[in-house]
């Protein structure tokens, strides 16, 4: 079976001349490095990584908008360099946060314009448009000009645009970015339903929302600094980390004595943060028995325990365990709401 997406040793670098610098030496930035991926048809594949990891660059290459610096990429069995037109008839893309289109056209007209790019006859085009506008909850705004719609509504129109040509391979680049809770939930539900509607449809979804990746995707690749560092099902990825339990401990040291965790077997300290005489530790534990050793150390150091929480590990832990970095520095890396199972 021909893979929906296949990349071999794919890489992309960008060079830029630093502005205002006396040196005229261009700076080279590696956006993608030796990426090897194979996505079979019918899979909802997730690409998880922080901002600047290379997710969008990969999507730009696969959607024929950017050429790679080296390596090969195929979509639907066609080479992105030699058969871009063939690929374009199979794909579509939605970038979250985008509000493209012409302000003086109505939502319905704007979508009609894009159907014409795919040669869809008028009647069929309007049937699809009306259906998609209903899906995104804009059926009553169909004849309102784009510049009279709110940003969220324009994003929804843009989301609908991605499905107009019934693409075999759809690239969704942070599709719920900036959407509010119920719209994001609706988008995720629609994505799942759309995949089920027809066999062989493939989605490559990039996100930095952990739960979105975990709950939507059949497989997830973790990308950092342009490299794919792990690729498996969400459960498979969780098995990669050295520990099945995540423990969050906050203590207040006494007389400046902090416990040492180095020699406890099966304990993996993934984060340590100190503020206002309080220290937060995040551990991954191989088994619950290790908690006993942690408590012993705390008693010996006479530290005051402020809180102790136990979690099942998630993809964030996987990411941190593999890369040694957090996926996102702030709490906004959470999706607006956990989608319904």
């Amino acid at each position, binding site marked *: 079976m021909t893979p929906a997406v296949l990349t071999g040793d794919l890489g992309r670098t960008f060079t830029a001349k630093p*502005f205002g610098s006396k040196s005229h030496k261009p700076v080279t930035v590696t956006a993608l490095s030796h990426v090897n991926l194979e996505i079979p048809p019918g899979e909802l594949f997730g690409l998880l990584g922080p901002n600047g990891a290379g997710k969008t660059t990969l999507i730009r290459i696969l959607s024929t908008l950017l050429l790679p610096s080296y390596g090969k990429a195929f979509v639907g069995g066609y080479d992105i360099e030699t058969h871009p037109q063939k690929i374009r008839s199979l794909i579509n893309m939605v970038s979250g946060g985008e*509000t493209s*289109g*012409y*302000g003086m056209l109505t939502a319905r007209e704007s979508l009609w314009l894009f159907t014409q790019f795919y040669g869809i006859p008028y009647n069929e085009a309007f049937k699809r448009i009306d259906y998609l506008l209903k899906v995104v909850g804009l059926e009553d705004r169909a004849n309102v000009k*784009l*510049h009279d719609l709110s940003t969220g509504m*324009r994003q929804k129109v843009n989301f609908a645009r991605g499905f107009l040509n019934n693409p075999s391979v759809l690239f969704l680049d942070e599709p719920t970015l900036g959407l509010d809770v119920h719209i994001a939930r609706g988008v995720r539900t629609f994505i799942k339903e759309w995949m089920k509607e027809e066999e062989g449809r493939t989605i490559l979804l990039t996100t930095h929302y952990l739960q979105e990746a975990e709950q939507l995707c059949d497989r997830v690749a973790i990308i950092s600094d342009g490299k794919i560092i792990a690729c498996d099902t969400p459960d498979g990825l969780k098995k990669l980390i050295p520990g099945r339990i995540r423990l969050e401990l906050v203590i207040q040291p006494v007389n400046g004595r902090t416990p040492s965790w180095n020699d406890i077997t099966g304990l993996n300290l993934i984060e340590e943060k100190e503020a206002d005489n309080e220290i937060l530790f995040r551990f991954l534990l191989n088994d619950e028995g290790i908690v006993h050793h942690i408590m012993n150390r705390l008693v010996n150091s006479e530290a005051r325990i402020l809180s102790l929480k136990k979690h099942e590990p998630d993809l964030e832990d996987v990411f941190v365990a593999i890369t040694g970095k957090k996926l996102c520095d702030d709490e906004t890396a959470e999706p607006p709401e956990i989608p319904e199972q």
Partner: protein
Amino acid sequence: MALKEILRTFKSALWLSWEVETNWTSPFLYFLYSVIRPLFSMLIVIFIYKVLAYRNPNEDLFQFLYVGSALGLFMLGGLGGLSTILQDDREHYATLKYVYMAPMPFFVYLAGRSGTKVITSAFYMAVALIAGRLFLNIPILQGGKGICLFLLVFVLGLCIIYAAGFLLVGISMLTALHHSFFMSEAVNSILYLLCGVIFPLSMLPGVLKKFAQILPFTHWLELARRALLPPLSLDNGFTGISTPLLLLIFMTGLAVLSLTAWGTFHYIEGRARRKGLLDITTAH
């Protein structure tokens, strides 16, 4: 409002405007760009004159036309540059809201933000005037006569550009992007037609001539011409009015325009806040 704060705001806004206008290329190319535009503008008027003068040469009219066009580059260019600045920050860069909520004088920011466009317009005028003096032997500031008056008129020119510019900036707070663009163009073309930039006011039909004669921009152009050129034998509608009197009339008009601009700007600013127009985007 402390002077230090005003200067700091003006300086940073001016720096920003300089970067926006010029950092797309090297300083040398920007200089070249700033020389080519006014020179070709002047070539157009020179050749218009050349086409028509073979039958009726009129050296005074040529000087009137040339110097008027050069002054127009400054006055209309500066005004056009200033009037679209608010829309640039609101619609394109989407920074107006942050500027507005920052603890700095908004008025001063806008003055600085449009600084490069006004300076560039003045540079265009200088290039055109110098070229006229050097290559066409137009007696611009011949023997240094009129230089003091011209410096005074130049400063007053800056004042009128900013006064009228702020009036337009104020109005543009209430309008959509494309309407602001058209408003700026409309004001420019009306002034180009009515202020005697390229032809004497005596050519205008009665009512239009009367209207043109009360516009401070017309007075400014006439004053600048009187400063730059020896007396011309053309009827520009101000024959018999002495330069000091014309200056007084102009200053009165400038004061009225400035007060109107100040009042209108603040009134509209309040309205824009009430209607939530300071951070809207109309260009999609």
